[in-house]
């Protein structure tokens, strides 16, 4: 179980209908690649976030597969068109089975 994992999201609270907004996400995570060895020469098992998704009102916005080469604290910045008021749901899937979630609601105005 990776320690100190904390998802963060920055998204606007309001958008006009059809506006393209920028969304930033960051999750603090060591992203242990599985390639390193500890002090006594034993391999450190891989422990990474392997998938990240964002949905808007149930519709997929982005679905990312992460590989061991991705650095610590993975950061994503992407754009989404907001057609109506609703909620963005963010989900990160950890190798150890943990699922981290966050959500942001966006109003039309």
């Amino acid at each position, binding site marked *: 179980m990776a320690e100190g994992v904390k998802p963060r999201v920055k998204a606007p609270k309001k958008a006009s209908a059809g506006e393209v907004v920028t969304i930033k996400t960051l999750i*603090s995570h060591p992203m242990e690649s599985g390639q390193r060895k500890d002090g006594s020469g034993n391999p450190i098992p891989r422990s990474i976030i392997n998938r990240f998704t964002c949905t808007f009102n149930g519709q997929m916005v982005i679905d990312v597969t992460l590989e061991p080469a991705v650095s610590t604290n993975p*950061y994503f910045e992407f754009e989404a068109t907001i057609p109506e008021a609703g909620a963005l749901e963010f989900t990160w899937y950890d190798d150890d089975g943990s699922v981290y979630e966050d959500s942001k609601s966006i109003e039309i105005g």
Partner: protein
Amino acid sequence: MKTMILMAATLVLAAPLAIAGGPDDDTLTINDDIEIVTKTDAPAHLDGLDTIYSGWHFRDDGTQEMEMDDFDNPGMIFVDMARDTWATPEGAAGKSCADCHNDPESMAGVRAVYPKWSEEAGEVRTLQMQVNACRTERMGAEPWKYDAGAAINMEALLASVSRGMPVDVAIDGPAGETWARGKELYYTRYGLLELSCANCHEQNFGNYIRADHLSQGQINAFPAYRLKNAKLNGVQGRFKGCIRDTRAETFSPGSPEFVALELYVASRGNGLSVEGPSVRN
């Protein structure tokens, strides 16, 4: 280093570089709110420089931009960790930092005046030494190793609440002797390459050292998140790296020599804003 997936990159900074390798003309405002003085007149005691620049001016626009928003600044992750530590009781007394000091925000201004003479201890203390004195004397907890992760994170938290305030370390009075010692160290050549701090950071700032820009070596922006090692780096660890690069045996972080040097180098930045945690390469 952050994994950046940029679908649309907007350059906030458009000002061109003044001269290759030299400080640029950009201005730094963090979160559209905290205005940072990154360029000002050198303090009176400093003969070798007319204008002092934060190391921020010597980085490229992409790196500079990361520091303009707390969400984009990877150093703030470590500040968050220190916030948790701040509120967690530790040691025999069962106290946390918050029990005496309330919110971290109550410590605004503290980072700006350290290293500072401690009357009770009869020595100049860096911020980390003062935190450790709190831990051992008031909390009954184990001191943190100098420049250890937890110690630097705490230093970053204390720096973050002082951002925008001018660095103002005292160089006279009881601290004068330590300051003079630090100044001597600054101008002493070390190592097989026979380089002093001043050879690079006073006489050659703005020039290239191999493929990188030489800054003035200001420490107003420490702790610094370095893209090369994806963590916060302390001032004295940086000193050690510099002296190592002259091919010398270095002093250790936490040693009296480095404490004196930290006071002196901090005083060279009197007038610049506290900027940490900063982002550098």
